[in-house]
């Protein structure tokens, strides 16, 4: 990808520091990797959403049909998949708020790197709360 015109800086407003290309949030390091993760998590969530609408629509077919599909979601492999899904959603949500702050908050571009680490921190806290709770539910179903 080349230079991204974000409209967040007047051209030339960043003083050059080091060897990295200047004038963009989206090339290299935190700016680029948050963008890459935002795309990957977004794609994963979109395809899950397609499946999730279809499986939920089975309530309109028969109680047995819906329960049969739900029971496949309760096995441990799917339980790990749900954990990954919630991880993707939490990252996409927190980084989405970071993007909004970069776009609308005057100091957003200045603090975009700090905000990336805040996103990671919030993600770790969220997952520390969610993962044990969910995996206990999933694995207690097996045993």
């Amino acid at each position, binding site marked *: 990808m080349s230079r991204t015109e974000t409209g967040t800086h*007047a*051209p*030339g407003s960043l003083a050059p520091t080091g060897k990295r290309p200047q004038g963009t949030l989206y090339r290299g390091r935190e700016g680029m990797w948050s963008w890459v993760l935002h*795309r990957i998590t*977004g*794609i994963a*969530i*979109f395809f899950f*959403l*397609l499946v999730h*609408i*279809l499986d*939920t*629509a089975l*309530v*309109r077919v*028969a*109680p*047995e049909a*819906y*329960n049969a599909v*739900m029971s496949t*979601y*309760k096995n441990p492999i799917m*339980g790990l998949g*749900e954990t990954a899904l*919630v991880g993707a*959603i939490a990252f996409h*949500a927190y980084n*989405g*708020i970071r*993007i*909004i702050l970069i*776009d*609308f908050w005057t100091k957003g571009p200045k603090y975009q790197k700090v905000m990336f680490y805040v996103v990671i921190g919030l993600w770790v806290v969220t997952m520390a709360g*969610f993962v044990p*709770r*969910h995996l206990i*539910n*999933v694995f*207690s*179903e097996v045993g």
Partner: protein
Amino acid sequence: MATTIDAPRSPYSRAPRSRGINWEKWGWMYMRASGLVLVVLIFGHLIVNLVLGDGIKAIDFAFVGGKWSNPFWQVWDCLMLWLAMIHGANGMRTLVNDYASHRTTRGILKGALLFSVIVLITLGTLVIFTFDPCPAGAPADLLASFCSAS
């Protein structure tokens, strides 16, 4: 003929748009506005369905019957369906524009996105609002407890 040369590093400016709605701008605004609402709706959805009570163990037809007999959750889920499908498909449209290099490929992929949005939003909305938590003839042990009360 005299030529005017801009001062170095003078800001780039686009020609002003003459007419029509700036769809890309409103799409950009939609991603941010719907994103904020979706954070609330989806985190609420995940907490109620996966964290509280028995979490995923409790999810079955009776659980859905209990939730969707309450208009609050019908509206919640319907809003989540519309906002998320359009947000997701618009995001995928951005990816298609970025990565599909042929005009025909882009057309096919974006057509597929539009098709899936229309079909799934229609299907989902119909399911939420025509859902019967107590279908006749279904075994009582699969249904919410209020079905056998009457």
